């Protein structure tokens, strides 16, 4: 399995490199370090959200409310910033994360304690959270000039050729590896999705583990809420509309099984990067940005077909000869 996952990541990495190389041969400069850094930076938010989504999908659930969560936290911190420009950005970031976790917890509680299907819950909260943005903003935009300079500057501040936004993505990825691989909570995500019945036998609380994943996904969406509105220096009701599909797409492309229990940090990151490279390559190659939606859709379908191929459960191996050769 580990070998297969590794190979899946290798295939994806190969595809990304091939894609970059292909575009480079036609449009020189695409593969330049500066451009690659900018692609990575561009994809940061998608990568962070994909990691959060991964933990949810690992537990056999799905979180469709991440983009609305992001937009709502973004609007809240932008509103606070506009009203109180003196409040330190770090406090705003903490508020964003906490608010995101709270919204994730709301999803999680419904899934955990009421045992409701996550798709229905998050379809519902997706519209509710989005609607709440309109309620608090009254449909108005918060534009760049209403935000403080510190608020806008942080994600764009360049360190060693990469903006802070990109560094935050790297930080999240770096923290995620031990979180997923080496903490009981991280391993519980795999156990709950892989075999919920058996998870109970190992003393893991299935509902609680799912709750944890929703809180984690929500917290990261909250963080991204700040990052998004500060980077693009604008907050309005439809921020990141439909972005939840890109996040799910990144996960599916990254080999995270929608049936739960299979996936890796590397897969989620590479899946997001794959979409990021395509998104950045389209304008360079002179293809209309209107192609992007169809390409993500096709990528999801191809990836899920590919996943199913590698996950196909074989029949029980009973024959000795078959066991030897399998």
């Amino acid at each position, binding site marked *: 399995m580990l070998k297969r996952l590794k190979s899946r990541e290798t295939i994806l990495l190969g595809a990304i490199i091939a894609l970059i190389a292909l575009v480079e041969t036609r449009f020189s400069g695409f593969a330049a370090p500066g451009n690659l850094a900018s692609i990575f930076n561009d994809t940061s938010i998608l990568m962070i959200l994909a990691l959060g989504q991964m933990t949810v999908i690992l537990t056999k659930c799905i979180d469709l409310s991440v983009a609305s969560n992001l937009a709502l936290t973004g609007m809240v911190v932008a509103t606070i910033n506009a009203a109180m420009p003196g409040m330190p950005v770090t406090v705003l970031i903490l508020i964003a994360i906490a608010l995101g976790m709270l919204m994730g917890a709301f999803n999680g509680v419904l899934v955990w304690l009421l045992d409701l299907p996550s798709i229905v819950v998050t379809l519902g909260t997706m519209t509710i959270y989005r609607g709440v943005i309109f309620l608090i903003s009254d449909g108005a935009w918060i534009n760049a000039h209403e935000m403080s300079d510190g608020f806008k500057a942080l994600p764009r501040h360049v360190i060693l050729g990469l903006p802070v936004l990109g560094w935050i993505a790297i930080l999240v990825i770096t923290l995620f590896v031990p979180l997923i691989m080496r903490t009981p909570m991280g391993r519980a995500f795999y156990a709950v999705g892989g075999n919920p019945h058996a998870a109970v036998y190992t003393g893991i609380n299935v509902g609680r583990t799912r709750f944890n994943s929703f809180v984690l996904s929500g917290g990261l969406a909250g963080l991204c809420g700040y990052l998004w509105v500060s980077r693009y220096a604008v907050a309005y009701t439809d921020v990141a509309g439909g972005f939840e599909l890109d996040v799910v797409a990144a996960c599916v492309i990254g080999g995270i099984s929608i049936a739960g229990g299979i996936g890796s940090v590397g897969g989620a990151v590479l899946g997001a990067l794959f979409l990021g490279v395509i998104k950045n390559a389209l304008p360079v190659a002179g293809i209309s940005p209107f192609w992007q939606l169809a390409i993500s859709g096709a990528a999801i379908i191809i990836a899920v077909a590919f996943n199913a191929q590698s996950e196909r459960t074989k029949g029980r191996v009973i024959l000795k000869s078959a066991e030897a050769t*399998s």
Partner: protein
Amino acid sequence: MTLDNTKQPIAARGDTADLAPVLTLRGITKTFPGVRALGGVDLALYSGQVTALVGENGAGKSTLVKVLTGIYRPDAGDIVIDDTPTQFQTATDASDAGVTAIHQETVLFDDLTVAENIFLGHAPRTRWGLIDWGTMRTQATEILTRIGANLDPDATLRELGIANKHLVAIARALSVQARVVVMDEPTAALSRAEIEELYELVDRLKSEGKAILFISHKFDEIFRIADRYTVFRDGEMVGAGMIADITENKLVEMMVGRPVGQVFPTRSTNIGDEILRVVGYSHPTEFADINFGLRRGEILGFYGLVGAGRSEFMQALFGVTKPSKGAIKIDGKIAIIRSPNEAIEQGIVYVPEDRGKQGAIIDLPIFQNVTLPSLGRISGNGFLKMAEEFSLARKYTERLDLRAAALDQNVGNLSGGNQQKVVIAKWLATLPKVIILDEPTKGIDVGSKAAVHEFMAELANEGLSVIMVSSEIPEILGMSDRVIVMREGRIVDECDRKGLTPEKLVRAAAGYEESA
């Protein structure tokens, strides 16, 4: 049943009358909707001793294991450890209290590695509190070596066969610092050599002073390794004592609640012409080269160990899976069966072992279950005719003496035995030629069991051909006209009812040498 009982137990049985038990269960009661699984049972486990828990399927043994390991919370009763009453809220509580178990079903994770399967939930940590994969691998290898399993700790479980998965389950149980080890049919899927190693392991655990609860259907192994016995019947404890003081016949009598030998219906052996012939049926991984014939009015028993490929073959015969080669003849004509639908058209029907998952649709009413495969007969132009539907359902459920309040009652509200009757009624309503019964009496109470047996005999007398897959030797011996034994996906023996002994069956199924 006179199995070889000359082997002396390896560890001496000391006089332990004055010994205090490590763990005692007092008056444990557990009820599920409609079923009382445990009705106030007592059980005591002693350090350095093996207690065998025997009882028929459905006697409450598995429920007891789940209570002991914190999966179920009992409705009433105490779990007493060292004179302190405790409660297990979760599986972790039980393992913290020193109770560990090798479960009957493999409760493991296919996509995790062997090492992680052994240590999930109690993995070694570094001083930063992170899981220490290196130590985990080393310790996993140590435990695996200790039980004689030569497995790569980094392999994922999916890559392993059933027997090896079972070894991982055993290793998992031993990875906890336990005082009480529960073994729920640990030898069911193991080969002869692996069983011997397991016995050695049990002896070693005994010498380490662990208290062992050993659940088994095999009397030879109970008499080989147990010191004490406890018998359950229908959720009650009906007897307990020292193994040295009891005979096999007495144990069986306690288990079934009546003298053995008159359990099965007598029937006329009026067997007709061959109706079904299977030639060279094979599957890439599940079974190979299955050849046999079945005659009208015959009951053909299929015996074998759990995982011998019997159900898998039956499901291929019924069209659920596709064979890689082979052919079927029905009434001398080649029949092609690629789906259950085609099997039903050809007159072959299948009562599956997993009643809740494959047989009954428990959230739908009885009549809808019964008429499901016969919908075409009770409808006109695709429209259902409710009156005909109810009368068809009534005809077959009443024939089977179903006990239900109404035909629109959901099947899930019925007892196991009555659920089985609904599934059988469903198939009889299709007027089949061949009925395959896969473990037909698994998990149903003794009374219903006898009713199912009686009915099976009646059907055969009426000319229906029956294939009965069973892992219960008395059932196989009592019901079959002919017995086929399968092992590792192949037919290894075929014999007439006459001259068949339990020993012969067990040897063939487990692959023992005749001289062993």
